[in-house]
């Protein structure tokens, strides 16, 4: 299995480039992925019949990366509230297709940290067995060594896109993206290029719909985070050593309290002192990627953080004390709740909704499903002026287009290239604050949205294929197709524009209504 996957990666570029005819693409995608990558069009595909965004379309817009054909009919049957409950308990959702694709194609993402690093190929390495094949295609021995990094990041990026497109646990994937931004790590720094894969698995995905405090704890000792925010260099080996404050500051400013969360420069320094001694073994060492606490590098004196005393002599347990203090702080409650409301309600969320969400966050001690359940119950979430007005970020736009068109995709470089042009490729954001949420940052992306829409509609994206005629026939004609895309009946001008010569799906995906959710 491992060999076949790596063979796939090594050879896919050439093989996919060779299949120009649209009819071949579907078969090629199937051959490489192994199984179809779009759910079959089964069951009722009833499209929305209201002229405004109704409850069903609204929850699909906000809790998912866009509705697939058939989602609307299903939620109409079980009800929007039941759908929310389902999505808040992802472990109970059957997700066979997505799980199978990820397990089959991206086995390296499950490797332990030390195996994420590149290594010199030995005789047993499957890469060596593969080498004659690669050599025929012009690869050099040194490429073997370099390959791991590219494969890993490509894997992680493709897996992220495929999960967003395929998973039935849509809210979970939405939250994975939310926390990926919240605890942003750009893999282009140092050894993050290998270790981000572990962070994605063990921090973000492990806790995306779990408990916020557990997630902060996991992030604090994540090897990638120790690299990204320099925690691994934060030590006090001698009295003259000045702690590295980078992580301490971002822990409070970005991860927990918010920039005006009431901490001072003194607090930053004290938190940095508490975290001295935590480090990560680099790739030159045995047990590379392992996180360790070195007592000799720890400042074990007494500290005071946000008005709370931390006695001396706690050693590694300083970390737990610090995290208790910052995650239980009212500023943390308010900041996280505000960010969630900004994501799910509006760029400038009403205070009443933030307060309601905050109460649930505090009462549940950071339980994320409980907090979201309260958010989704606020009148502000359901208000008419909330519906259909949020500007999709480019990733959301691209994935929702793939979903609404029931596209098959292997998330190849060709697709990622569009995300890169749109300024929103996964794992490409440089600073610790993560991709911005508000529409104003994404205003300049329209041209590449339109180009993507045309390329998708015309089957010009390598490794991605749609069958519009089949979809239209199954869904019941043009009007129903438009309603399925927009989540409501098309307006007269939308319908007229869609029916003009040459318009079709490209226009629907590029239309203003599809830029919003």
């Amino acid at each position, binding site marked *: 299995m491992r060999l076949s996957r790596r063979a796939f990666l090594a050879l896919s570029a050439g093989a996919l480039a060779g299949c120009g005819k649209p009819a071949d693409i579907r078969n090629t995608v199937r051959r490489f992925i192994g199984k179809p990558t779009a759910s079959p069009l089964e069951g009722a595909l009833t499209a929305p019949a209201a002229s405004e965004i109704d409850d069903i379309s609204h929850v699909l817009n906000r809790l998912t990366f866009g509705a697939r054909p058939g989602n609307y009919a299903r939620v109409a049957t079980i009800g929007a509230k039941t759908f929310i409950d389902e999505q808040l308990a992802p472990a109970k959702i059957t997700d066979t297709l997505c799980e199978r694709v990820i397990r089959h194609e991206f086995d390296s993402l499950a490797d332990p940290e030390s195996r994420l690093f590149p290594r010199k190929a030995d005789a047993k390495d499957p890469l060596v067995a593969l080498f004659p094949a690669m050599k025929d295609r012009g690869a050099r021995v040194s490429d073997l060594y370099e390959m791991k990094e590219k494969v890993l990041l490509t894997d992680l990026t493709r897996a992220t896109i495929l999960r967003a497109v395929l998973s039935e646990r849509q809210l979970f994937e939405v939250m994975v993206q939310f926390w990926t931004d919240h605890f942003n*790590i*750009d*893999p*282009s*720094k*140092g050894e*993050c290029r290998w270790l981000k894969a572990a962070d994605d698995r063990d921090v973000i995905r492990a806790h995306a719909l779990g408990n916020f405090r557990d997630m902060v704890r996991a992030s604090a000792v994540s090897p990638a985070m120790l690299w*990204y925010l*320099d925690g691994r260099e934060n030590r006090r080996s001698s009295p003259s050593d000045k702690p590295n404050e*980078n992580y301490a500051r971002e822990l409070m400013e970005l991860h927990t309290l918010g920039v005006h969360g009431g901490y001072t420069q003194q607090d930053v320094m004290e938190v940095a002192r508490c975290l001295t001694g935590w480090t990560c073994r680099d790739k030159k060492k045995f047990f590379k990627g392992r996180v360790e606490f070195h007592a000799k590098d720890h400042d074990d004196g007494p500290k005071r953080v946000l008005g709370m005393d931390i006695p001396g002599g706690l050693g590694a347990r300083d970390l737990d004390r610090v995290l208790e203090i910052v995650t239980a702080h009212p500023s943390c409650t308010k900041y996280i709740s505000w960010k969630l409301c900004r994501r799910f309600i509006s760029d400038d969320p009403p205070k009443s909704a933030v307060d309601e969400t905050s109460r649930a966050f505090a009462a549940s001690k950071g339980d994320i499903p409980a907090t979201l359940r309260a958010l989704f119950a606020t009148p502000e979430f359901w208000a008419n002026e909330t519906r259909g007005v949020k*500007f999709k970020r480019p990733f959301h736009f691209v994935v929702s287009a793939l979903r609404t068109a029931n596209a098959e995709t292997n998330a190849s470089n060709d697709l990622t290239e569009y995300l*890169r*042009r*749109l*300024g929103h490729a996964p794992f*490409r*954001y*440089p*600073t610790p604050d993560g991709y911005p949420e508000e*529409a*104003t*940052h994404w*205003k*300049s*992306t*329209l*041209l*590449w949205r*339109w*180009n993507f829409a*045309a*390329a998708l509609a*015309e089957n010009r994206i390598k490794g991605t294929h749609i069958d519009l005629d089949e979809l239209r026939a199954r869904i019941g004609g043009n009007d129903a197709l438009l309603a399925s895309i927009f989540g409501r009946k098309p307006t007269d*001008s*939308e319908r007229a*524009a869609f029916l*003009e*010569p*040459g*318009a*079709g799906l*490209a*226009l629907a995906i*590029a*239309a*203003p209504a599809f*830029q*919003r959710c």
Partner: protein
Amino acid sequence: MASPQALITGNEDERRTLVVVFLRGGADGLALVPPVSDDHYFKARPRLGIRSEKAVQIDNHFALHPEMSPLADAWHDGDLAIVHACGIEDDTRSHFEAQDLMEHGGVAAGGWLGRFLRVRPAPSSGALACVAVGRALPECLLGAPTVTVMQEFSDFSLSAKSPNLRSQLEALYAMESGQLGVAAKDTFDALTRIEAMRSQKYQPANGANYGDDDFSRGLSQLAQLIKADVGLEAASMDLNGWDSHFTQETAITGLIQRLARGLSAFRTDLGSRMATTSVVVMTEFGRTIQENSAFGTDHGRGSSMFVLGGGVQGGRMHGAWRGLAPEQNERRGLLDGYGDLPVLNNYRDVLAPVLVRHGAVKEDLQKVFPRFSLNPLPLYA
């Protein structure tokens, strides 16, 4: 079509454009800007040293390579500032590593120019706010809000089978009020202006004389974008091939020609618009002071950086310089010979004042160049 004078979007109050030129391969600062009054220079380079009679003397100490002469006017007009002995703090001799460090702005995620465009309080909003001339996104632009990677103007276009898509979209977006409607109008305007540029042969202004090579072509495209007011805030370009281990003169003379001719034509072409345009020229490291047996030079440390236009205090050398006497140089354990020109001026201290000129404030600079205590050179009045 919008009036060609109207600015589409972006930095309305300050129409400023920053162009970054990267000389890949490690350009020899001692050939570009030879210290012709330093005897050590000719001792270290008996065959490759630029003889003072051929060079363009620019002050008591330095000259420009003869092929740099098209830039002499810019220097004498006070429009070109030069910093010698410039580079990164790390002494890696790997092109890849050094370029990465320089383009990321240290051991940092993303590129310094990308971060700059992202962290400012008013982030770039125009569809053409940032252009990378070439085939791929350079590392310095990683993390930028949007970048158009463009070899030709046709790369910035709406490509669809149906020729009607554009007018249909225009009709649909015309009904949009608010941000989305404005953004769409900006985009259509930019498309229209680019199409106008494509449809006619470009006539550079003021008799500017671009060369017939990719570098000049790229710069003339940027000049057109700047003049068309499409909201271009930053652009990047590469000029490759500076790794002159063998027969250096042959290897780089043509490159220097292209560099100087292109930049000089760009400056002439833009005329008064040069006051709001800055060009920075940089390279990952310089070359050994001493020539090698193959009439070449090897990977070294300090090189020179150039800042052109944009109100720079030009016509003078900026930053520290200590001459080439062996005891001043980086020796790397060498017992004899000249070693390397040390990095006396960190590249960030050249970039920082340029970024301030382009709207960065102190907090922005900390994000653009994290974990570095800046000591910006006084390049501006």
